[in-house]
């Protein structure tokens, strides 16, 4: 058995990073780049087609779609990143604990909770949260995080179980290291790479889910621009002004694609099992 440097084509990673960089510049620079106030209404310019003045046209309130799309990206992307970080932290913590104390009551309880959450439809869960606490981005994120940590926890647990068979773990035990120290110094570094790869893929799905829930009216509330809610608002004018949907739809596709390409690239480079050649 020998290790070799990954020889797969890094194109997907590069393309993903380039697309993401362009999107990030556009979205984070929205306050400077957006030509208009994203919430300013102008009845005289409603439903205008793309033009020199409004590159992506205007919506039913006469708001500039390009400006709303760029600002909306901040809402969608930042909320997705925030939710991902929270889910990642919870997932790592739970997965490490379950893996470390494999076979214990704690492990059984945590795994059953995970089973239940995996069996519950995410959309329904989000709606229950919205029904209980009301609509809005904060509640939407709460719903997302409540469910999204599960996949990270399962992956972390399996990595930990695998790592516990390694000699370094046995050595640490023999040397009398505490459980906390073993988790921090021995297991966490091993779990980080696969979990980060998963996170990159999950971010794409998360963006889609947050957009879908906002599409259903559970996320950002008016007049805040958000890609999903922009798509929902544009539906009513689809036949009259299909351009309304182009901006948010294109940005969603590009962002998810970018994260998926980055995820693929990272997996090729970082996944230890991908690097092994028998």
């Amino acid at each position, binding site marked *: 058995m020998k290790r070799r440097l990954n020889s797969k084509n890094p194109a997907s990673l590069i393309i993903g990073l380039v697309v993401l960089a362009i999107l990030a510049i556009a979205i984070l620079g929205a306050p400077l780049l957006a030509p208009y106030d994203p*919430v300013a209404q102008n009845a005289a310019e*409603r439903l205008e087609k793309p033009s020199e003045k409004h590159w992506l046209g205007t919506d039913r309130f006469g708001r500039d779609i390009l400006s709303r799309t760029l600002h909306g990206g901040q809402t969608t992307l930042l909320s997705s990143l925030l939710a991902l970080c929270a889910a990642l932290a919870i997932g790592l913590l739970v997965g490490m604990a379950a893996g470390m104390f494999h076979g214990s009551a704690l492990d059984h309880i945590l795994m059953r909770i995970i089973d239940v959450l995996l069996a519950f439809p995410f959309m329904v869960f989000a709606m229950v949260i919205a029904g209980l606490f009301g609509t809005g981005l904060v509640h939407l994120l709460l719903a997302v995080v409540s469910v999204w940590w599960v996949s990270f926890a399962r992956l972390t647990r399996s990595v930990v179980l695998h790592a516990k068979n390694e000699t370094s773990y046995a050595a640490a035990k023999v040397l009398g290291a505490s459980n906390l120290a073993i988790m921090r110094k021995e297991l966490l570094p091993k779990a980080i790479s696969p979990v980060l790869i998963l996170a990159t893929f999950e971010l794409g799905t998360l963006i889609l889910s947050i957009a879908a829930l906002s599409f259903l009216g559970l996320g950002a509330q008016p007049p805040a621009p958000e890609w999903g809610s922009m798509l929902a608002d544009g539906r009513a004018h689809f036949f009259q002004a299909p351009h309304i949907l182009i901006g948010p739809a294109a940005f969603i596709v590009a962002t998810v694609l970018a994260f998926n390409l980055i995820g693929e690239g990272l997996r090729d480079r970082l996944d230890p099992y991908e690097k092994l050649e028998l």
Partner: protein
Amino acid sequence: MRKLWSVVLLGLSLAVAGCSGGNSNTGNGSPASSSPAGSATQSEASPSPQASGAEPQELVVIGQEINASLDPVKPLTSSYLRNIGAGEALFKVNAGGEVEPSLAESATEVDPTTWEIKLRPEVRFWSGKAVNADAVIASLERSKSLDLQAQPFLNDLTITKLDDYTLQVRTNREHLPVPLNLSYYQTIIHNDEASHEDVATMDLTGMYKVTEFAPKQKMVLAINEDYWGRKPTIPTVVFEEISDEQTRVLSALSGRSHVTLNVPVSSLTQFKDNKEVYLSAAPAASTQTIYLNLSQPQLQDVRVRQALSWGADRDELVILAAEGQSTPVTTWLGSNPAYAAAKNAVYSQFDADKAAGLLDEAGWLKESDGIRYKDGKPLTVRLMTWGGDKALGEALQSQWTRIGVKAEVQHGDYSLIETARESGDWDASIEAWSTFGEEYAVLSGQYSSDGGANYGGYKDEETSRLLEELKKAGDPQSRHDLALQINERVAQQAPVISLFPRPQVTAVSGSLQGFEEHFRQFENVVNANLTLTAQ
């Protein structure tokens, strides 16, 4: 090509709607028929409802909302039951606005405070029980005691039995139009001894009997074979809720439904050049109104309420939220053609400066962030919207923000508004009540301190005094003048902000004959003249 798009989008929209769990039919399925409620693929294959050539069996009516209950005394339930031909009142108002007998045979004004109403001896409830004087009195008493919204029409009436099929109605004031009061959907006649919790036990009089019911999803009805009047010819009626407006539009365009209520004005262009569906846009005498919660500290000051009204650019709202399909009204009665003088009263034109002045005067001063503050607290208004009013909420939010109000819009199901009202945790909400009817009944329902639609707790001595005068007034001219005075007083006090008559657009399949355009379409769809033809 357009049809194909419609079908594809309908499928996608239904999938989205399915995610919300709002429209999936969990019932036992509708009776077998050449159903228009088939799949998208079926619709694609057969471009119009029931185009298979077989005898059309099923009328499909789609509404933005349907009932959550079968009991006529529950809020709005009676309107849906009437709409679909299951419930009837003693009288009804025809499309021309005239009151005509329904379960009653005739009504005679014996003297200024007494009416005699003759009932039809042939009328029976679905159970077979006679609809006689005792049954009618018991039904109306039940509505009066359990349905707040029925009270404005019944509180002034004392109904007694003269004989088995004759009622005497004594009124608290002279020349009260009793037949009009007894035509409202809130007064539909139901068997008070029956349990209205279940399809099997509910007992009404309509031409159609409910056979299946999934709350807020679907109601299936079959012909009442013992109906007292002219029996309908279409064997089955299906009444479904599709809350998503674009899905409703696609349902109409794809031929899935025969009658589609509450077509959003933003979709009118989609029906252009469509030869299989036509639009009915009867003017509705109901005013889009913002109800303000007067128990909220910031809204207790009349100047703030007036500022919100001056700060609403109604012309712009009509364009942004009603696609230009309405005209601004500044007072509540303005949507009623009989009160055209009220259309532009009090708030003659949009005046942001006046609004700003009033807010300054009230101590709400603008700070650097553009929002007004008083004692360190921002001037906030949380506006709750439902149904198709999201755009209206957003447009208002923008307009109020311009005068320094931190406006938030919360859009959701009507039940959220009801819950918020019960808890008192709301600032403003949008609704449209009919302005058609007997002056005292409609105005007291909105503006008397115990009015069923006085959501914000408006209590004003001058308004109450004028309402008392109206209650006693006999001749039509003085009633008309008093109604205008009350309307103006209310506008000045601004417990509500009137915007424009709500557009009422219904899509009707070309395969349906006998559809009657009505100014209260939402409660007048099914009639015995309806027939379906295969296209």
